[in-house]
């Protein structure tokens, strides 16, 4: 009845959402305190009267959000490159089993469902920072930083998916199978 993939994605999306939200609030408070800005809180959120203060806090806070997402994505990328059950090395498998950490080894379904959610957050944040940079609400550097990280992360994920596809390709005994295919 229910789509298993959608349920899985919803399940995976809740924790990053809470983390990003918490990071935003905590970073705004901490940056304001660090710079000694007067922090006015109202029903609609944090209100800054000075444009420079607003720009500083907004920009660094968005950078902190990008950082939080990058930490999560780095964890997923390490899992997908090192602890992926399709291409984990035998020695590492033995080590993990001896350390009683066999749960670290995950399949493609687990890893890519997490990866899609985190990458979606990064893309959304890139869009938001781009719009805010256009309207002068954040420094353009924030957008460029998010853009660079997004390109790197996307490339790494695409490479891993390609590797995964190559592993699951049908193999033939003949080593020259692909050379003769076009004849």
């Amino acid at each position, binding site marked *: 009845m229910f789509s298993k993939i959608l349920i899985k994605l919803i399940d995976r999306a809740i924790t990053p*959402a809470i983390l990003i939200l918490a990071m935003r609030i905590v970073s*705004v408070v901490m940056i304001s305190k660090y710079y000694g800005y007067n922090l006015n809180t109202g029903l609609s959120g944090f209100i800054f009267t000075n444009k420079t203060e607003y720009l500083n806090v907004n920009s660094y806070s968005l950078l902190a959000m990008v950082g939080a997402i990058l930490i999560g994505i780095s964890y997923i990328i390490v899992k997908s490159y090192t602890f992926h059950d399709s291409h984990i090395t035998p020695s590492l498998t033995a080590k993990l089993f001896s350390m009683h950490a066999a749960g670290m080894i995950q399949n493609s379904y687990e890893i890519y469902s997490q990866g899609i959610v985190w990458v979606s957050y990064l893309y*959304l944040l890139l869009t938001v920072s781009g719009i805010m940079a256009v309207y002068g609400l954040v420094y353009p550097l924030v957008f460029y930083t998010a853009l660079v990280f997004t390109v790197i992360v996307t490339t790494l994920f695409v490479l891993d998916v390609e590797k995964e596809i190559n592993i699951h390709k049908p193999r033939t005994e003949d080593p020259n199978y692909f050379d003769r295919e076009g004849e």
Partner: protein
Amino acid sequence: MKKLSKIVINSGLLMLLFGILVFPMVSVAFVKLGQNKSTVLSAQDTQTTPTATATPAPTAPATEVNNTNEVVSEESSQSSGSTLTPEDQMPSFDDINGSKSGE
């Protein structure tokens, strides 16, 4: 029927997923550039209070001028133009009759 309910449930789940994904981005709107109401009010209190009490209400002369049937003066017709009735601006029958009888 089963297929339709499956489509409805899955589209609802999809919307829920989209809502969860977009929700943290709403937090971007928590930080705003605006005026701090408490400081602005205090500044206004110190600067503009004397002028605010000194200026009288502009509609006061209009009510005083039009009690009689005399010709309306220029000042009253300018200051209270919107409140004057046609009877106030035109001479009454008594004035016309009086001027005719005076002749």
